[in-house]
């Protein structure tokens, strides 16, 4: 049976997944791939509270709240991809105990209802204290993270395995065209934890349909607060035979023991009761025959105070941990040297406050270097993005992480600005380096450096010139660390040294102020017309040492032997 709800849910889930798929490099300007995340009212309100500021991109979530006054929790029943996913999983998982007209009334299922309000109080209290833990409860953060970091890599693996199979099973003339179709897989740290959190939430449909939406979802609670007496109401006329079908079928058990009465803070306007009623007694309209029936869950003042109090306390606990970006009374916090944030990430404290851990930047990252971090950034930083250069380096001409970030935790800056948003500096672990330690010939780090930030210098006691980092030309992109041929830990590693984190203003100007010079090899090339000579020194500015384009006297260039 194709119902209105199934249509809207299919369309919106498809849109959600399509936009998530388009969160990739290259990014299409004007395509708001983060649109669904911005619809989440919890993300909007929580971010506004935590950052004490408003930005227009947070407006859609507030519009969803305003719309709740008109149509209740329509968002939950038709748009939220989490709700759609739960409805879908319900088909195979179903509740153990079949809902009946007796056990599926609002009154009979009231037991856990208040939890979502407590969760809302907890999360928003933490936001009030300036700590964002929205990611534990935001349904859009949960769903985006799950589909982007767990489902998408699985599908890629499936596709790649399919190609492997095709290569060995299909006849050559059929598989020839597929030969060089290659699917680059993606891998994410903490993917098991992301999956487990999602499974834990969805597994609850074994107990009740949409258990999450009924009892736990703080965004649902927030919308519920605004839909206690919506314009669009459920009306039951006199032909009702009290058969209880509507009660039995209601996915959120929003109907009272008296089937004419509806708890609008729970009703997701799925219209199942309208469809199922054998007497056609149920309709939704804006007519107001009687005041909205209101049943509030077992929500005590004590409970609210406790929830909000523990939210504040948790914020305090997080903010007194040793990984705090700005601990009170200290100039700076204990920063893991490998906590390399994406280029354009706000200053750490602002960054953590804005980041909702949706994983959109990691899904979109051109090279897969952006990874959800587990505890490296402290408990508060779970699932926030970090660059892992040994796994993959940052693509020079890509700024997609900033373009897809729904909350501006990573700034949406131009490519040229992004190139100046230094994320760290490479340093050479000389004990690991083939040249420094074993006097072997190797220049891979220089070969792959997009910024010419490695120079090779003659060193007394070594036959081979040894690599040295020109730190004011190093952007921290990590190509050297990634491609270093030493097995295990790289002999050249990026640390947060010298990262530029700006809340506003130009990275180019700041880099100039710091005496940094980021000239990508491509940029240097722009001054190289075909057939002309590259004047020495023009492609590298402010270089304390530049690779000679000519070799003086009897000295031999790299790789050549005496006659």
């Amino acid at each position, binding site marked *: 049976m194709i119902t209105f709800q199934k249509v809207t849910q299919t369309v919106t889930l498809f849109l959600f997944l399509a936009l998530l798929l388009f969160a990739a490099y290259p990014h299409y300007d004007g395509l708001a791939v983060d649109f669904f995340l911005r619809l989440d009212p919890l993300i909007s309100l929580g971010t506004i509270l935590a950052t004490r500021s408003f930005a227009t991109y947070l407006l859609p979530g507030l519009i969803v709240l305003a719309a709740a006054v008109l149509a209740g929790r329509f968002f939950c029943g038709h748009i939220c991809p989490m709700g759609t996913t739960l409805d879908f999983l319900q088909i195979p998982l179903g509740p153990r105990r079949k809902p009946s007209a007796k056990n599926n009334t609002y009154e009979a299922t009231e037991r856990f209802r208040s939890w979502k309000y407590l969760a809302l109080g907890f999360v928003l209290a933490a936001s009030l204290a300036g700590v964002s833990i929205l990611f534990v409860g935001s349904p859009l953060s949960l769903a985006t993270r799950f589909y982007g970091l767990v489902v998408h890599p699985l599908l890629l693996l499936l596709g790649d395995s399919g190609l492997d199979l095709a290569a060995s099973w299909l006849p050559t003339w059929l598989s020839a065209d597929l030969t060089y179709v290659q699917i680059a897989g993606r891998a994410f740290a903490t993917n098991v934890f992301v999956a487990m959190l999602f499974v834990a939430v969805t597994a609850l449909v074994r107990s009740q349909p949409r258990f999450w939406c009924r009892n736990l979802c703080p965004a649902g609670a927030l919308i519920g607060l605004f839909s206690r007496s919506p314009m669009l109401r459920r009306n039951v006329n006199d032909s009702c035979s009290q058969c209880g079908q509507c009660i039995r079928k209601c996915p959120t058990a929003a109907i009272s023991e008296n089937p004419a009465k509806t708890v609008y803070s729970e009703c997701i306007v799925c219209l199942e009761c309208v469809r199922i009623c054998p007497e056609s007694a149920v309709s939704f309209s804006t007519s107001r025959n009687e005041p909205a029936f209101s049943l509030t869950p077992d929500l005590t003042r004590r409970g609210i105070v406790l929830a909000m109090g523990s939210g504040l306390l948790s914020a305090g606990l997080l903010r007194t941990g040793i990984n705090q970006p700005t601990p009170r009374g200290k100039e700076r916090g204990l920063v893991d040297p490998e906590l390399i944030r994406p280029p354009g990430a706000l200053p750490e404290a602002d960054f953590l406050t804005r980041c909702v851990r949706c994983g959109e930047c990691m899904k979109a990252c051109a090279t897969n270097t952006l990874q959800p971090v587990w505890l490296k950034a402290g408990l508060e930083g779970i699932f926030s993005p970090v660059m892992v250069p040994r796994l993959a380096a940052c693509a020079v001409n890509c700024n997609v992480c900033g373009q897809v970030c729904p909350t501006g935790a990573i700034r949406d800056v131009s490519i040229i600005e992004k190139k100046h948003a230094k994320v760290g500096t490479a340093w050479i672990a000389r004990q690991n380096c083939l040249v420094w330690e074993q006097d072997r010939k190797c*220049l*891979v780090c220089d070969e792959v450096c997009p910024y010419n930030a490695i120079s090779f210098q003659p060193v007394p006691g070594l036959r081979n010139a040894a690599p040295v980092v020109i730190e004011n030309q190093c952007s921290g992109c990590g190509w050297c660390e990634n491609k270093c*041929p030493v097995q295990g830990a790289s002999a050249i590693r990026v640390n947060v040294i010298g990262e530029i984190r700006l809340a506003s203003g130009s990275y180019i100007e700041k880099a100039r102020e710091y005496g940094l010079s980021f000239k990508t090899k491509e940029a240097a090339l722009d001054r190289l017309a075909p057939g002309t000579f590259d004047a020495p020194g023009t492609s590298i500015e402010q270089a304390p040492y530049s690779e*000679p384009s*000519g070799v003086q006297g009897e000295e031999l260039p790299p790789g*050549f032997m005496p006659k």
Partner: protein
Amino acid sequence: MIEKPDRREFLKSGLVATAAAVAAGTVGGIFSPGKSFGAEMPDLVVSHGLDPAAITRAAVDALGGIKRFVKPGNKVVIKPNMSFASGPERASNTHPAVVSEVARMCAEAGASRIAVLDHVLNEPRACLKLSKIPEACLNVPNTTVSTVEAKRLYREVQVPQGRQFKTMEAVSDVLDADVLIAIPKGKSHSSSGVSLSMKGMMGLIKDRISFHSRYSLHEAIVDMVTVLKPHLVVIDGTHILSSGGPGGPGTVIPLNLVVASTDMVAADAQMVALGTWYGKKFVPDQVRHIRIAAERGLGRMDIDKLKVQNIKS
């Protein structure tokens, strides 16, 4: 080992075709080492001119034409340099017109499949786009330009003459190809001195890292080319990357030539001698892998003793 019916078969067919000549006792040229098609065939062609496509075609024609190498229905693999996400001006990738012209000639000779392949160093899509090689080959029949990353596209191959290793993983299509053509850029290389046809074959194997970390690079290159031995080499010397190679930027010098040969060692040696590297001139045996390859009998680097044909177009 790629078995390509080049020299041996040509010698055979040459034998038949010139049976009368043999009888007449004019056979000397045929049996000379390093020569393959009678006395009139040069060992090396240096083709000068400003149009990359035209000098490429002229060079191959001077070597006996593409039909000498590619038979109708043959599967051809072309190995250019397209490892870097940069345009032709930087001279770290092969000039697209040189690659597409060779591909076009192969298509004209009736090749059933022409695969332009490289296991690139930079981001594959960026390499393909910026190198402009796919763009140049777009309208060449039966031709595809691909980067090679997936493990399934490689297989292990014995390296019987290997001194550093006895097996390696190489691109399956290369091992199965009828013809392998190397079209490297003439460029300097910070580890191997120059990167020409022999060093360029590292773009057809899976694990290059060991070449730098586990093996002696030059010896390993020579081990590799005992198996990945191109049947035809066309070195792009339209512009050479004289310093700052392999990725650049560095000094780009226009030489306006291509070097072609059936002998990879001779072609590389000739390119070393023709180019100026880091502002200096070098003789071929100053590049260790060229010297080792010659010593191991894989080709000749004594270019002054080879028949070199200079042509202009």
